[in-house]
């Protein structure tokens, strides 16, 4: 999968779970500060991402995923 595809799939998940405008989702955006995804929503985003990309994202990794780009890098590495 390309980075763009992963960002686009994450944008769909972020919209579904937290109502984030898909067009605002890009690699540089912070989940918390830019996209206002709170910690409970982030748990749900992680669940959906695990299902979508067939990866396991442990809690200790989640706290390192500050931006969408961090998540993309992790998903590429793990899949």
């Amino acid at each position, binding site marked *: 999968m390309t980075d763009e595809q992963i960002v686009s799939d994450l944008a769909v998940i972020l919209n579904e*779970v*937290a*109502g984030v405008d898909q067009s605002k989702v890009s690699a540089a955006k912070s989940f918390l500060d830019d996209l206002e995804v709170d910690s*409970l*929503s982030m*748990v*749900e985003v992680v*669940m959906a991402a695990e299902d979508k990309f067939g990866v396991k994202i442990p809690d200790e990794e989640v706290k390192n995923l500050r931006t969408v780009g961090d998540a993309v890098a992790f998903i590429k590495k793990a899949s």
Partner: protein
Amino acid sequence: MSRRVVVTGLGALTPIGKNVSETWANALAGKSGIVKINQPWAEGLAAQIAGLVTVDPFEVLDRVSARRMDRSTQLGVIAVKEAWADAGSPDINKERLGVFFGTGIGGLSTVLEQYDILNSRGPDRVNPMTVPMIMPNSAAAMVGLEVGARAGVHSPVSACATSAEAIAGALEMIRNNRADIVVAGGTEACVNRLAIAAFASMRALSTRNEEPELASRPYDINRDGFVMGEGAGALILEEEQYAIKRGAKIYGVVSGAGMSSDGYHIAAPEPEGAGAASAMKFALTDANAKATDVVHINAHATSTPVGDIAEYKAMRSALGGALDNVVVTATKSMTGHLLGGAGAVESVFTILGLKEGLIPPTLNLDNQDEEIKVNVAKDKPFKLSSGANFALNNSFGFGGHNVCIAFSKN
């Protein structure tokens, strides 16, 4: 009593209407909201009928907010939005705005859904919003967020007396000067396989599955239990002077509340209705009213064989001969039993009844139980006399909770 409390906004989402005006019009028209539950999950249940809300909450509420609420909370928030808008969306200091809102059963449907996910997909797929969706104060808390209340958010839980108790609590909150406006009411949405099986297991539900519209028949000799309904009611209670100053529309006065407990049994009503009678007498005293002031009672009247008789005995004990001049109605004959939403929805009926001088008819009263000697509005709306000013709304809950709210037109 220096701080009088008035009603300035109403909201209702019921099996007979998507809002107050539709619900009221259908109540006056004597329309039944009871239908056959045409879902595969209802197969094999003793009771397969219910009063269902036809609005899809996801079409009314913000989608992301709605998915973080159990259906019971969704219905409650929709009713509150209507009531709040009806009150003119008051621009109030939020430190003076409170909430008293409850549910009898709460987020049971979410419990079942997440339990299925737990078993089928494992613990790490349980939704992180499960706890906030199933806690009994969830509806109250979401209502509090909806209006931004900061004077206090409270959620009484007393089964089918819940939302009447919420109105009583809201009344006290304003009288005690903790708030100038309180959003009061309650909600329920537990029409699911477990809840119906469980209530049916108590033999509390009507099993007249082939004639859904005839199943809820309070006071009729052939009544065989209540019909579960879902829905919510909301009332904006407001200190009278505050309401007058801001030019609010005033529906009527919450003139008193009475509460008691049976101290008798976890589910059965005390057969002589002594506890319920106490609640009614307390409400009269609290409202500084006499038995002869009462022109109308919106009865709890769920259509169970024992409950309806116990309530009759309570009404007779509380009002004595004055009961003969009262017109009673049993609106659960149309809506079914909204459990935690019942007291609020029936308070909406009581207030509108006084204001418009029309009492909705009771359906299916073909042969009135001769033990229940009351005048019941039936066939068509009962027209109150022009001076009619004072009415009571009874709500009782499993556990022996008794609540009576007194309303007056002026």
